[in-house]
């Protein structure tokens, strides 16, 4: 089971955090700080896996963003790399060549996407098509509401 996922920039700024295990806030901050420092200190050609406390950490850098997941001893490291990749693909498809700024300004969307892909620390839906379909359905609901709101405003409804 995945314990948490962190997205942070090359400058060490945390961009997104998703915790699947309950930790006190202080611990979360400490873990985040330590992991960001450890990973930023590693060189590009190094292995993407780390032994960290009793967990395994899997990370990968995409442009200016690091994606970092902590998994348990039983979990599969290589496939976790591909969970990260699938998430990146989803973001990319949704935002259209995603960049760090998209995630900063639309962090809530990044969360919604994450909840479709992973739930409770386990993979929920691996099909790219199905996740995007679910997100599109959400957006459609929103747009309907927006249109409805606009119509109401100008007194047409």
């Amino acid at each position, binding site marked *: 089971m995945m314990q948490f996922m962190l997205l942070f920039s090359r400058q060490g700024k945390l961009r997104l955090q998703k915790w699947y295990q309950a930790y006190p806030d202080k611990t979360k901050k400490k873990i985040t700080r330590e992991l960001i420092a450890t990973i930023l200190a590693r060189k590009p050609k190094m292995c993407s896996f780390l032994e960290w406390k009793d967990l395994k950490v899997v990370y990968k850098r995409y442009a200016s963003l690091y994606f970092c997941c902590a998994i348990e001893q039983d979990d599969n490291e290589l496939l976790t790399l591909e969970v990260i990749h699938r998430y990146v693909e989803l973001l990319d498809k949704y935002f259209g060549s995603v960049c760090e700024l998209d995630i900063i300004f639309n962090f809530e969307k990044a969360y919604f996407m994450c909840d479709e892909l992973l739930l409770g620390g386990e*993979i929920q839906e691996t099909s790219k098509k199905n996740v995007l379909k679910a997100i599109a359905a959400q957006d459609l609901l929103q747009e309907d509401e927006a249109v409805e709101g606009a119509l109401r405003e100008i007194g047409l409804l």
Partner: protein
Amino acid sequence: MPAVRGDGMRGLAVFISDIRNCKSKEAEIKRINKELANIRSKFKGDKTLDGYQKKKYVCKLLFIFLLGHDIDFGHMEAVNLLSSNKYSEKQIGYLFISVLVNTRSDLINLINQSIKNDLQSRNPIHVNLALQCIANIGSKEMAEVFGHDIPKLLVSGDTMDVVKQSAALCLLRLFRTSQEIIPGGEWTSRIIHLLNDQHMGVVTAATSLIDALVKKNPDEYKGCISLAVSRLSRIVTASYTDLQDYTYYFVPAPWLSVKLLRLLQNYPPPDDPGVRGRLIECLETILNKAQEPPKSKKVQHSNAKNAVLFEAISLIIHMDTEPNLLVRACNQLGQFLSNRETNLRYLALESMCLLATSEFSHDAVKKHQEVVILSMKMEKDVSVRQQAVDLLYAMCDKTNAEEIVQEMLNYLETADYSIREEMVLKVAILAEKYATDYTWYVDVILNLIRIAGDYVSEEVWYRVIQIVINRDDVQGYAAKTVFEALQAPACHENMVKVGGYILGEFGNLIAGDQRSSPSVQFQLLHSKYHLCSPMTRALLLSTYIKFVNLFPEIKTQIQEVFKQHSNLRSADAELQQRASEYLQLSIIASHDMLATVLEEMPVFPERESSILAVLKKKKPGRVPENEIREHKSPVPGSTANHQEERSAAKTVSANASTDLLGLSTPPAAPTAGNTGVLVDMLGELYTSGSPQPHANNVAAQNAYNPAKFVCKNNGVLFENDLIQIGVKSEFRQNLGRITLFYGNKTSTALQNFSAAVTNPTGCIGKLNVQSKKVDPTVEAGAQVQQMVNGECVFDYPDAPSLTVTFTCNGTPQKLSLRLPLTVNKFFEPTEMTGEVFFARWKNLSGNEQRSQKIFKATQPMDNTAIRTKLIGFGMQLLDGIDPNPENFVCAGIVHTSKQQIGCLLRLEPNKQAQASNGFYDSPTTMDMFRLTVRSSKESVAVTVCDLLVDQF
């Protein structure tokens, strides 16, 4: 500002832009505080906010939280959004609740009500939102409230696939929180049959759930085995076009495959021959596919394919019944060892560690020895080198031990600091385990000390001494080798310890040679004496007295040395005492007496090596094994943990000042019997520092004064007619070890004895304390000890309490004491000049940085007593820096694991001060004190001040 998707909240985007444009941290904080104030006023204002506004503000709060700031309001507004009829508002409400989980009970009910409503919605999007929220929070209350509905949702025929997926994982999350929620009976088979579901997404999610259920109740769910195997079989034989969107970079359903392979690792190989045959076919197919040319050059293709392969290999290793598959797996991993992907090399080394422990594949793994040695030496990434070391350790057996140990020793010279200590342990274990020739073993350990002396722990050098003592065929060689090693101009202190001990026992075996005559041996050892720590010096003194017995011709030379150290020139009390007692022994005792007392050490009882335990402790949960089926006969001369330490400690002295937190606390009550006089004599020495239950502690009868222990670490904590409780404590940085000695003063045994340490609420999370259990029976007149370890995480106000209960002559007794573990114990004294002191003093003049108390003296003012107390308190007493010579000033640093907190103190006595109790009282005179404590942290200043107030 990039385009905002969806319904866009302009205010939020503007705010985020503002934050990004802030030039400094201060500016950012200012902007955030402004926004927080704004949101607070909006939430509190009279004007009711519409949904959109609430959503926007809640979103801003979320963003602020994500920047790392604490958010303590807005929960109510977020909960309001949950019941909005607009999806976008509802969704933000759920997001806020999920990210900033708050278990305020008044809100939980509202949240649960909203979730309940949404679960019943006909719109699957709403249902999923509710399920995701449950899965994100997963609290016990939720398990209670929704434990019934979700299983129904999961297996009902009307439920849509997307909802089933979420329901499965939501249930899994609740199951992890509270195991009772899963219904049994017919539900079991309905859940298992989800493995046959049409929808791959449903199967994937359900497999995770089933895996967890199986772990709790393997028998009930064993029906899943055959279903999992056939599902797996269908996937691995599928062409990549069959599974459409569940094919990932030409690999059919890698996630589901891995989950199924993992699920099967919960069971032994299937009993049913049909199922078993099918599973083996699957595994073969996976291995075959690994040999096929890749369908894509993309790393995603190879990662997904290899993820399945590694999981299949895990299952093959888990089954451990198919020699053919095991060897094939090993060959496959062997290929990966020279793959250009670092990740693959890392994982291959890791998996091979497991293969090395199977009797079928151990030899196949050994074929890759050279490559693995190269990996250890050449890999650029230390984590990969670490894996290589682990694998070498795992593949080592008696045929390759010499080579592997030699290679590890060579590598140690340049190895990364982070892995040295562990490597030292591994080398020591292998050398001992596979030694056929003990001269080789001695060489290896001495090389270890030479190459990586700093990383050689006590256990390792204790162990070599035990083995040398137990094997007379190696003693002469050991003496010769240590003698040679000590001749190096700079040799590690651990070498001096081993050398001193071995020469003291067996120096006579090489004394015939002029080059290592008694006098040469003595001078060689003594030339190192001044460079060593007190503990080693103590050991050397013991060696010298042994020399007096072995070599009477150098007795006068040695007596000179004892004389030098028996007077005040030796600052260490232990050394002084040793030197004077040894001196007397050498003068008074007859030759026969000396020979009896200083006889060779007796053989150590044979037990398993304690080094292995140390290695296991270092790496809980992930110790590479070095257990290959052929069971090695135990090496002669093994001893278990504490036995060994005790024995070693007896002769080498565990001097408290050098071994504060080591394991070798001196035994409180030495067991007489094995070496007679020597043990008894030394026993006195060792216990001299610890409280003697029946010593002249009359004053302490029935006495209990916890305040006394604020300023001292050792002594009698409590005493009455039944029991005496002594305490001895040692502190280093933020760690402390307290040894409690319970002495039974009666002539009957104390029964049901228990001593529990409890942390008061004020200390929880700030001070970690752990105490060992004590034997439930304390025999008449006996003394037992208990270790309590403390770690200061933050400064704390109070001290843990100690509750001692026991039954004496049928009467239950209960004592409640305060453990002498106040925060000042973690002080490090800090020396500083007057200028520095007063500069800092002035800097800390804020109200929240100081604490001051004026109080009456409780005892006559005696400067020496005050000085002793202040020094015992733990701070550095700074003499001659206060303009007023009557005043006392101190400085110290409190070590916590989170921070170090500087602290300054000034105690101003005012003899015969005018004190007035009230307006109408006539003034009287009395001794007064003014105590001022300044610290960078207010709580520390207050606590330190409070602790000291009653002391004078």
